[in-house]
């Protein structure tokens, strides 16, 4: 019997689910292996009977925790997909601000009606079995994780920084091009896709397990960034992880 899979979204843009919906031919091969029972972005049907739950988005309200816990209860495997679900994502930028101000900015005079708390990755609420990092996720890595789960093995997610992939791809280092990059502390696995295209690594896959943050900040400053800008580089995606460290 094919494993049943379901997709869920919390605070996020649903861009990761869109990556899955956009798998094209590979989607058909995937559907030979799994049965999708819930996927709001592409189908009306819904079932609570599933084996693997893919969860996009971060948890930004206390009441979302119940829904996450329900998913955890129903699923054999919970897979966090995308930056928001895996590392808190850019939602965590609000954690640097006063949360009442945040509410007023978004909801104006209705602010009192809407609850909020510090944005967090879903593993801050429930245990997570596997992670598909990235903003958005890459289709290749999504398939890699699905295959690993179906084969009963641990997905092979790098614990080395993006520099490894940049070097293999023979990119000119972003710093050599006069840009500022957080690739040296960011978990690889994206095949350095942004730097390949001439831009920088923003850090969407989060920090490696043991980043040398001080050295990276010194490098940013040595190459001409102000201290504040160097700190901001770390806030964009690393907010939740930095606070935990």
């Amino acid at each position, binding site marked *: 019997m094919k494993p049943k899979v379901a997709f869920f979204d919390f605070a996020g843009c649903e861009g990761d689910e869109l990556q899955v919906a956009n798998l094209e031919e590979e989607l058909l091969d995937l559907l030979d292996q799994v049965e999708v029972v819930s996927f709001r972005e592409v189908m009306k049907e819904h079932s609570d009977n599933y084996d693997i739950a893919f969860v996009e988005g971060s948890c930004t309200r206390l009441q979302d925790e119940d829904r996450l816990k329900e998913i955890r209860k129903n699923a054999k495997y919970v897979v966090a997909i995308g930056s928001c679900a895996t590392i808190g994502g850019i939602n965590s930028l609000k954690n640097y601000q006063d949360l009442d101000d945040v509410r007023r900015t978004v909801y104006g005079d209705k602010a009192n009606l809407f609850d909020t708390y510090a944005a967090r990755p879903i593993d801050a609420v429930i245990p997570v079995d596997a992670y598909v990092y990235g903003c958005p996720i890459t289709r290749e890595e999504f398939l890699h994780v699905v295959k690993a789960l179906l084969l009963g093995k641990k997905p092979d997610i790098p614990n080395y920084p993006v520099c490894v992939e940049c070097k293999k791809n023979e990119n000119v280092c972003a710093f*050599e091009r006069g840009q500022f990059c957080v690739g040296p502390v960011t978990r690889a696995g994206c095949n350095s896709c942004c730097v390949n295209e001439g831009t920088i690594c923003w850090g969407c896959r989060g920090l490696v397990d043991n980043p040398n943050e001080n*050295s990276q900040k010194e490098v940013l400053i040595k190459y001409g960034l102000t201290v504040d800008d160097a700190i901001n580089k770390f806030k964009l995606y690393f907010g939740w992880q930095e606070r935990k460290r």
Partner: protein
Amino acid sequence: MRIISKEDFNKFVNSLIKDDSLNVIGVKAKGNKFAFGQLESAGELRLDYDVTLLPPKKYFFPQRETLVTYNVANGFFAKDPADFKPTILLGVHPYDIVALLHMDEIFRETKSDPYYFEKRKASIIIGVNIQNMSKWCFAPYMGCATVDYGYDLMLTDLGNRYAINVGSQKGEALLEKYAKNVSDALARDIQLVGQKKREIMNMSQQKFNFDTELIPELLSKSYEKSSFWEKHAEACLACGSCVLVCPTCYCFDVKENPDLSLKEGERIRTWDGCLLEDFAKIASGENFRPTRPTRYRHRYFKKGKYLFDRFGFISCVGCGRCSSNCLPDIANPVNLFNDMYNEVTNTGEQVAPVAQPDVSIETEGNINYVPKLATIVKKVPMSYHETLFEIKLDDGSNLNHKPGQFVQVSVFGVGEAPISVSSSPTKKGTFEICVRKIGSLTTKLHTLNKGDKIGIRGPFGNGFDTEFLKGKDILFVAGGLGIAPLRSMLNYVLDKRADYGRVTLLYGCKEPREQLFGDEMAALEKREDVDYKPSVDWCPENELWAGNIGVITTLIPQVNFDPETTYAIVVGPPIMYKFVIADLKKRNVPDDHIIVSLERRMKCGVGKCGHCQINQIYVCKDGPVFNYSKIKGVPEAL
């Protein structure tokens, strides 16, 4: 020496490009840097470059390469013979030519790597003498700024013409077939080339404060200076850039890439680097080089000491790529070694060059990356997380292993892992492995059943010296799963009982439910010719245990043996060795009477991929069995 005008040289290059049977690679601009790439026309070629981002090794040892394909129905297959064309590399600097010669020796030592050499042998190297030197380059100090060997053709820019040194018949034939208006060099050309080469020797902007032949000895004197390494590695990002761009680095990882059917796939190798955090980490989570300074030190030792001791060359050609790619600027070998020289000589110590080691590189056939198909013929649960698998090779052959050797076990779609053989070679037809459910592969293996197919490569490693041990008393000391490799020797000795002296087995586990081979141990207890002593670290209240309670070392004072005639064979978890060895020494067992078997991350099994390396030793090839007297001075060993 020959001469060709630049105009005719361009025509030569264009006629090479036009020939579809050739793959013409040359140095081209990439942003404000340079890189080797496919040449579309002679106009793209930039022989005035300083250094390329990656060295040309990527054409022989690519970033990603299929080693094996598999399908669940039929087994494992070698990659299809590559349909590659001969590759012409145009514009290789002398230091990169020397680096390729280093790689040649490394890839053919002991066993030859077929994937490297199929491409290497089909290549033609057209070198060029350096016109612009990168500001990081220190090749003149490494003797690699110019070269007289290792190329098919070597170019020197003489303004309106190139001087060409012909280095091989292949080079000669290439000129004959594709170049027009090639003339013999005149005396003035020969003199000019000589002058250019002398200029190159003075081009480096880097400066060594001492003779680089002292490097191996300087390193020997600096291993223990931990504050020196901590200071230099403090800013290390562990990003691996220094090793990934290195022309002589060759460490690799092997990964499984199943397709979506989950029934087929490929096994690939990719570049890896010893600076990366998980490089020496094994499935149980143990990391044998966990800190940045230890990994940073390992890189310099590998280049300047370990490979020197094995091959006689310092494995650095002075290209300066590591220096230029290191953002915190801590990878420059010139800075490190100058500081090391100061550090060592400041204490008044004399540093003299060491003698060249004796080098003999022997090759016994090719590395076989393709596993043999095998069948699980029996699966016996041993404990709550360990299982004994009996395996038969499908081609009907015996494994022909020695006690203490290991095999690489493949599980379709998951990959390969080193597992020691648990049965004695006296058992024919099948062999056994005792496996703990700990990583992906071993967990998956536990879901397989009798009749299921797996892959086997090997046996690998040296194994126990059964001949030498004949007539000796043997004290086996097993901790936990260490009984698995030990059992191959124990059963061998028991099957040839008359050949060996007294046999004692000390076997320690955490608790009774962890004990393996319970029936066999019970049988040992009854034997008169074996002294068997089990122990558990602790026993839960509701379980029965008649043996000793305490860690394994508590058994050592309880047994009688003559240290003069006894050889102790010790196998257990990494933490166990130093305690057991200390207690054996208290009983006057000489160092060379202690034999251990070590566990590391063994990926290739043939001393190439670098993962199992402890200092200068490859565990997969030089071990896993070691005489303690040989490794007690190897700091990373125990």
